[in-house]
């Protein structure tokens, strides 16, 4: 076959493959066009999940009749005119591809009325076949209708998923865009049902709450920071991040916009996850929304036709900026989750604590729990002082537990109170967290202390352990180990970490456990690997559930709950403390 240029329509259809994949991408392109046209209200209507019909209505600037034909032609745009403009794109679109692409794979009708124009006009494109402009009826703004998507491309149409799936993706795309534009009202109709209604908001936090849902938005943390990537090149971030307890296995609860554009950026997502590390279980993703504003010259958005991926000029600087901003928000927050008490969660008999029944106070003295002492503890002077203080500075008071009275219940839980409620602490989880943080702080100051042995300790080992030992040596030295291979099947220990000995943990046992792990990795990201080993050390060294603690030990632990950054989650991400709000208790006692 001789080489020939492709017919223009085929070129457009191929190009459309990159921009127009499914109804959601059509909606995204059309809504972004509407926003670029200055719309303040955008309405989307779907039929058959968008497979049958998509309609986008806006109240934007509109397109004059004489420009309509050009609007649906490829590489025609009003948004940029020169190479210069491309370097600092301020609009969503700029490639001039969207309408032409959509028109090449569907039946597209554009009806528009410029604001000051007296009449509307309309143009149709049917799978690339452009018809002539006709006068039409319509309000100021633009109405775009897409039917028969991929109607002449059975192969593409076959790849569309079920109606609910495609509709779900449209919702997702629309929400994402809406997060970045709180000032614009969005509505979505599916068939004749209104399924999304986002009124224009002055307060972006309200828009985030509307999109993320009440559960995630309750007590969400505000992330706000500003910096300069270079002189005269500012970067800022604003967002709302849900508390760690809201983290989900699915990643899509975390949305980003960059200069208002919905983006997916692995670097920025990583920065956010890192900030949450230790607060959420591994494999989960925090829920929230961050809007990053950056000097357009610092980013290349022209990487992918859908523009969901961007390329930062200084990815490392952006990463650390976002990481610091999110971490700062987490640090200043009181992250202790409130315990939702449902009827089923409050045992009517058995268990160590009874909620809600007046008789339980008199009769329900489970082992290790003394209600009399509890009452005394809660009425103690410390609680009163803190409550008084709370009136002065209600929001600023983190949780001064250390000075409080406490009880050890069931040899597992430490019970105390603060101004907001009754606080229950998991002793193992808290101790583990405390030691993890201390160890990490200590490793920053230098290698952990090492206790030399009088004579080397020779331990049998597997070939795998010996092999991994070499790789692990630098890290082991930081941890206070001096261990060498003693042949193919033994380890020779010359020195062990003081910390483990003090906590009565056999260092060799820990060492072998680490070397034998399936996910062993001594070479990867240094800090992450170190954190993993420190986590193992902390877990082994921590007091266990079932350990009876002396008053002094309890006091020290609770003091650390106040002192240690992020102490409300153990390194595995499980919570270390829960609060039962006073109002909940009052309600249960019929005082509410």
């Amino acid at each position: 076959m001789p080489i020939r240029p492709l017919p223009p329509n085929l070129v457009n259809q191929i190009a459309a493959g990159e921009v127009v994949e499914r109804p959601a991408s059509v909606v995204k392109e059309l809504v972004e066009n509407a926003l670029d046209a200055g719309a303040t209200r955008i309405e989307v209507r779907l039929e058959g999940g968008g497979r049958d019909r998509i309609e986008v209505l806006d109240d934007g600037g509109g397109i004059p009749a004489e420009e309509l034909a050009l609007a649906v032609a490829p590489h025609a745009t009003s948004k940029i005119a020169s190479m210069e403009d491309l370097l600092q794109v301020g609009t969503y679109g700029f490639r001039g591809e969207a309408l032409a692409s959509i028109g090449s794979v569907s039946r597209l009708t554009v009806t528009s009325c410029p604001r000051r124009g007296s009449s509307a006009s309309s143009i149709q494109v049917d799978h690339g076949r452009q018809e002539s402009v006709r006068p039409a009826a319509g309000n100021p703004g633009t109405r775009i209708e897409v039917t028969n998507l991929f109607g002449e491309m059975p192969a593409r149409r076959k790849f569309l998923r079920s109606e609910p799936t495609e509709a779900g993706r449209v919702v997702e795309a629309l929400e994402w865009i809406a997060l970045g534009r709180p000032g614009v009202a969005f509505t979505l109709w599916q068939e004749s049902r209104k399924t999304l209604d986002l009124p224009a908001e002055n307060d972006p936090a309200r828009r985030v709450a509307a999109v993320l849902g009440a559960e995630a938005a309750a007590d969400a943390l505000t992330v706000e920071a500003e910096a300069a990537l270079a002189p005269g090149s500012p970067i800022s971030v604003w967002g709302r991040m849900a508390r760690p307890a809201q983290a989900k296995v699915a990643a899509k609860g975390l949305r980003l916009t960059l200069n208002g554009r919905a983006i997916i950026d692995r670097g920025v997502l990583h920065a956010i996850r890192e900030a949450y590390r230790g607060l959420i279980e591994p494999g989960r993703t925090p829920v929230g929304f961050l809007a990053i504003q950056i000097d357009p010259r610092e980013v290349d958005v022209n990487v992918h036709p859908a523009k969901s991926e961007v390329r930062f000029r200084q990815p490392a600087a952006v990463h650390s900026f976002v990481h610091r901003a999110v971490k700062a928000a987490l640090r200043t927050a009181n992250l202790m989750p409130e315990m939702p008490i449902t009827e089923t969660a409050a045992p009517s008999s058995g268990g160590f604590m009874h909620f809600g029944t007046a008789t339980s106070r008199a009769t329900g003295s489970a082992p290790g729990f003394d209600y009399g002492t509890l009452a005394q503890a809660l009425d103690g002077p410390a609680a009163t002082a803190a409550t008084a203080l709370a009136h002065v500075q209600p929001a600023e008071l983190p949780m001064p537990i250390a000075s409080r009275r406490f009880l050890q219940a069931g040899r597992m839980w430490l019970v105390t109170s603060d101004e907001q409620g009754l606080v229950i602490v998991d002793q193992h989880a808290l101790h583990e967290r405390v030691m993890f943080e201390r160890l990490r702080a200590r490793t920053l100051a230098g290698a952990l202390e090492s206790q030399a042995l009088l004579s080397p300790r020779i331990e049998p080992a597997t070939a795998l352990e010996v092999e991994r030992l070499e790789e692990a040596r630098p890290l082991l030295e930081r941890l206070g180990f001096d261990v060498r291979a003693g042949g193919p099947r033994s380890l020779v220990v010359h020195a062990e970490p003081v910390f483990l000995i003090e906590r009565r943990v056999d260092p060799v046992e820990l060492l072998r456990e680490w070397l034998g792990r399936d996910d062993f990795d001594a070479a990867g990201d240094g800090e992450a690997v170190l954190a993993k080993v420190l986590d193992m050390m902390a877990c082994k060294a921590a007091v266990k559930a079932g350990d009876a603690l002396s008053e002094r030990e309890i006091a020290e632990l609770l003091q650390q709950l106040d002192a240690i950054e992020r102490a409300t989650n153990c390194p595995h991400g499980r919570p270390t403390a829960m609060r039962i709000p006073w109002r909940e208790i009052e309600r249960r006692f019929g005082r509410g």
Partner: protein
Amino acid sequence: MKILCDRAVLATAVQLAQQAVATRAAVPALSCIKLTAKDGRLTLQAADKDIAVEVPVAAVEVKEAGEALVPAKKLAEVVGECEGATVGFEVVKHTLTIKAERMKFSILGFDPKEFPSPKDPVTKTEFTVPAETLRRLIVRSVFAAATENTRFAMGGVYMERKAKRLRLVATDGRRLVVTRGDCSSATDGDTVAIVPTKAMNLLNRLASQPDDAVQVAKLEGRLAFTVGEGPEAAKLVTNLIEGTFPPFEDVIPKEHDRKVTCDVQQLLASVRRAGILTTEQSKGVKMGFNATELKISGSSPDVGEAEISMPLTGFQGQPIEIIFNPGYVTEALRLVDSSEITLEMKAPNKPGVFRVGQEFTYVVMPTGQA
């Protein structure tokens, strides 16, 4: 069985016997104390799987001989609560009734036959040592024995007797202590054994009368200690730890470059003070010696730092800085009853040796240097 005992004497004896009882016994009889009243005497017996003790109770009036086997913990609690000068015991069908002033307890017991009867009687005494000497050696060695159950037979104290010289050695792999004392009489030849730490601690309590003599006999795989004379003697039989004690002579440095003699109390106080602001994560204290002064400092990034100095006289050698776990140093200094102690060192990564004459040698490995 029907007897009347002096309350205070009984309480002490029961407490002692209770120490031998296994904390988690598989057999109920091993969580019990056996009481035997005969020939005008009461004897308490208790055992775990490795150790058996026999504690005589003086000041008893036996009205009717007999035996009882009752849970040790309950017996100890009850006797501890009793008031008045005397306590009466009476046994009917395995139930022990305890009567004291305005109190009466009946503890359900077991058949005394379930208590393991002692094996072969002690035959040949290998050596005899004054109770006071034995206690001193025990107290100054057990602290360094490994608490964790590890290899090298280090969970016990190495006991070695050559002619009339007795040595106790203990180590946890990081420090090692050797204490020496003299026997009052001994057969020719040697006695070598690794004694469980628990047995040593019990023996320390059994040998509370300084003037008593302790006779030590070796049985098959066991050692038998008899504290005191005749029927009033307390007895302890313990299984020995099998295995070879690490070659401890090799880790005691033969030479040193630096040597200094310090006041024990002053050194103890200084190390203790320097250790106040250390934590589990930052344990070591740095000891800097020079001709005139010892500077001890301890710090941790999250608590703070301490710096203590004390004057030195007669420091021999070049200045040196060496880091020790302060706990290892203070534990030993607390047990020393002399007023002065000598410290020998070679290098910051080599062990330090604390000595009091020939009687006490304590080798400690430094920390900080991997």
